[in-house]
């Protein structure tokens, strides 16, 4: 999949593009509106990750050009105006991610857009002796559905999307609650949810694929 990253902050460009390459995306970078416009005219992108505050203008102006193609657009911005978010989504952007964001969150949002647009054929993922269905938001053992709360499912799904990678409590908490909940203990709540997931699934089969990495976090190992 080909991604155009439109961002002018060099450190961020480096980190995001390296992350995308690690995740098997082909990544082009534009650091200005003009450059981005040229890239869009020449190449066909699956995703455009668009920063709004660019040196030669407002990233929102690019949305008109992008509406001609098939690219899914995720706005990445440090701005805090609500209007920008509303305007961006109204002008055809698929999602809006406020800086500072976690790269894992960016990946999860991109996958959610793919699923929504039907670009992701596979919705069922086997995990141990279970099968997780991202579309139906269910987890099955044989033909039995195991009831998880929405937070537990979201946690499992996030770990699964980032399988074989250690996710720490801060990353998991940010995915579940965002950055606004005023609770320094919220990362400890992750342990509670993991414990409950293990308990609920453990009644049917082993959950050794859900690993605790001592002192660091959790990992789904497949």
């Amino acid at each position, binding site marked *: 999949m080909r991604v155009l990253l439109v961002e002018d*902050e060099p*450190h961020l460009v480096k980190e995001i593009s390296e992350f995308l390459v690690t995740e098997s995306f082909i990544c082009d970078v534009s650091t200005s509106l003009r450059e981005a416009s040229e890239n869009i005219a020449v190449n066909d992108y699956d995703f455009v990750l668009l920063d709004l505050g660019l040196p030669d203008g407002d990233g929102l102006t690019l949305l008109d050009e992008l509406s001609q193609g098939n690219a899914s657009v995720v706005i990445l911005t440090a*701005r805090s105006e609500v209007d920008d978010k509303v305007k961006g989504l109204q002008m055809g952007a698929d999602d809006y991610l406020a800086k*500072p964001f976690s790269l894992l969150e960016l990946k999860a949002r991109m996958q959610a857009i793919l699923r929504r647009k039907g670009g992701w054929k596979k919705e069922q993922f086997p995990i141990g002796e279970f099968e997780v269905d991202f579309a139906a938001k269910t987890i099955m053992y044989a033909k039995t559905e195991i009831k998880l709360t*929405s937070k537990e499912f979201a946690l499992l799904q996030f770990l699964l999307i980032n399988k074989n990678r250690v996710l720490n409590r*801060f990353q998991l908490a940010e995915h579940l609650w965002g950055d606004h909940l*005023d609770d320094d203990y919220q990362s400890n709540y992750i342990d*509670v949810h993991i414990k409950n997931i293990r308990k609920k699934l453990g009644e049917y089969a082993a959950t050794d694929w859900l690993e605790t990495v001592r002192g660091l976090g959790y990992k789904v190992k497949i």
Partner: protein
Amino acid sequence: MKLSAKFLIYNFLAKGMLLVAFLALGPFLIEYLAVKNTDSLLEEKKLEVLAIIESEGIESFISEENRDIGYGSYNLLKEEYILIEKVDYVFSSDTIFVEERILDDASVPYRVLATTFMSGEDSILMEIGRSLQTIQEFKDIVFRIFVGIIMVFLILSFLLDYKFANTVMAPFHRIVKRKLSSIDQPQQYDYKKIDTNTEEFQILDRSIADMMTRIQKAFNQERTFISHASHELKTPISVLQSKVEAMFAAQELDHVQMEKLLDMQGTIAHMKKTVNALLLISKVNNAQFIKTEEVEIKALLEEVFEDWEPIAADKKINFSLQKTVSHVIPDTNKSLLLMMLRNAISNAIKYTPKGGAILVSSEFGERGFQINIKDTGSGIPDEILNQVKEGLVFLKDAEKDKSGFGMQLMFKIALYLNVDIQVDSAENGTRLVFLFP
């Protein structure tokens, strides 16, 4: 009390007091005038009788037959009488006095004019009397008319004052209603001038408009500052987070280094939360959120309950959702509402000890729809609560773990969404009531 009502009461009382004073003096005045009038009449009568005596002689009144008893006569209704008799003395001047006379066994007061004059060699006394009963009746009639006129005057002047006060105060009410009460944010201020020729209200209208212009300018400056500050703060944090995450994912580091990275990530998470909370408080203050959503509270409470139930259960807290009623809140913002309730419940769970209880319910109370969160936690100290209610963002003397922005956010959001928060905090627990408009 309304200013127009005060004017009305003042006018009514002032006029009323003057009129009462006038009424109290009225009988004496009337009596004085009536007696004066009677005296004039008696004087006229005296002159008339003297003219008759002069033209016809005293014999037409005192003849040989009544020489000793003199002449005495009442008119038909006994309102007046005349007495002419010979006496042995002469007054140096006329006298007027009140005298009781017995008529048909009843004592009747008369105003009497007594005069003496010489007729030939005889000195003659003439008394002309007029009944004071007539004066009393006249006095009563005039007094009643007086009272009637005064009452009509009072009622009419009250109605006119009422109408006048309302007309004069109407521009003031228009200023308050159209320009102040009906707006939530300075941006909604209506700059169209109020139609009035009262100078004071014109000055008030102009002054409020000037003040609003200054407030709007300050709001816009703050908004621009927030936008720039957020960009300047968020981008470096974003870079920092990406770099730490990339290192964390690289799996080339040993466990100790990974733990250090995790500490860094914790610090970054704290920075993010602080920046976001400050920006959010500022944005709520500046009304930078839309309030156009309809939210069904029962479903929202169930959603929040489901999120926190496992956390409470892990802490052995008896967390229950009871008596929830269906209610749709119009013109609100779902994410802010959710944030407000999440902060309240997260606080309740944090400060409720193991084995305690938290009860969430919703109902229609005396003041409308309300959500109650009752816990057996340690309660919120008054000094902290007062600071939050006063709108302070950075609290003084707050313990480290209580210095987050959760409470401030909760109160700011409530203020923005027109929700009234009541807190009953005691040693054995806290009861938080969210009263919806």
